[in-house]
């Protein structure tokens, strides 16, 4: 209880540091006067007594410092003072303030942007995947470590022999530039980027199409047997004014 009371009083003194000063100064003056009186009673001249009192007391300023340390939280008071000083300097030097604020703004916004992108790419589960926490990457590591792509025959072997995975799909590492156009129509061609993936790609991921169908078991992965394309949602919304885009035939 007593400690709590003291804590709050120290806090109050830290916030209003000057309040106790006049009383302390008065008390110290009175102390010195009483000391002086004593020395005079022992037969010193007034001048000698005053000097002796000051000497005996051992530093009025030092005592004030000790008193301040005990009655308040000095670091809090100092921090408040520093902040006020900083504020004054910033107000005085407008150019410096503007430069500092601008650098901070740029730095913070760049970091925010990078984090937003990284968050979406690396830390959020990809959209449309049924159980993202059960998804693993399989790759080849060389003698020096690292994580690289593997060959299609390797993929086939892994898919055949895996016992711990529900399914294994493969995709080409880099999207390939293709040109997409109508077959014998007046629709102009357009350049698009596509990825080549294995037939079970969507089955393993558990993705559901927004419109039309995905390729799966009904299709064949023999060369030329099932030339099926699945459009990305973004591509589809970009061409939403042409609902006939799915289910049709296109030259690729």
């Amino acid at each position, binding site marked *: 209880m007593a400690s709590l009371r*003291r804590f709050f009083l120290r806090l109050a003194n830290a916030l209003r540091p000057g309040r106790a000063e006049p009383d302390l100064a*008065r008390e110290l003056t009175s102390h010195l006067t009483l000391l002086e009186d004593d020395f005079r009673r022992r037969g010193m001249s007034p001048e000698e007594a005053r000097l002796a009192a000051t000497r005996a007391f051992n530093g009025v300023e030092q005592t004030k410092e000790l008193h301040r340390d005990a*009655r308040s939280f000095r670091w809090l008071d100092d921090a408040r003072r520093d902040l006020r000083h900083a504020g004054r300097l910033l107000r005085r030097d407008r150019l410096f303030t503007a430069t500092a604020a601008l650098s901070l703004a740029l730095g913070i916004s760049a970091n925010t942007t990078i984090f937003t992108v990284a968050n979406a790419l690396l830390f959020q589960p990809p959209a449309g995947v049924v159980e993202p926490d059960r998804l693993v990457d399989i790759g080849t590591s060389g003698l020096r470590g690292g994580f690289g792509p593997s060959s299609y025959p390797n993929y086939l072997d892994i898919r055949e022999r895996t016992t711990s995975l529900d399914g294994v799909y493969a995709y080409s590492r880099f999207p390939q530039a293709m040109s997409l156009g109508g077959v014998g129509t007046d629709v102009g061609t357009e350049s698009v980027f596509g990825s080549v993936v294995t037939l079970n790609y969507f089955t393993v991921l558990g993705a559901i199409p927004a419109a039309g169908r995905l390729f799966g078991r009904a299709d064949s992965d023999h060369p030329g047997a099932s030339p099926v394309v699945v459009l990305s949602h973004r591509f589809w919304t970009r061409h939403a004014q042409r609902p006939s885009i799915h289910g049709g035939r296109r030259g690729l």
Partner: protein
Amino acid sequence: MASESTDRVELLQGTLDLIVLRALDTMGPQHAYGLAARLEQVAEPSLRLNQGTLYPALVRLEQKGWIKGAWQRTETNREAKYYSVTKAGVRGLEKQTERWRRLAGLVDKLLLNEG
């Protein structure tokens, strides 16, 4: 006569508060100078006491609500701030004395055993 510096005792942290509280309790209301004079009279030359160090102790005790200061006139008609022990201070003194006895007893016991 032994050399001054080795014979004098530095006060342990926190013990000055207890000493001041006890002195005020036995002497009745007293100003800082009177306290210092009294402590010097009782403890000198074994206690090294800078009169200024009484002030932090006084403010600590006052903030705890154990003593209260009030301005009054001395017998020589000088103004001085007189400190007196409050009811909470009396209880605090009892508790702190008890704690000090336990601590001192423990240290004593350990020192004797080690010796």
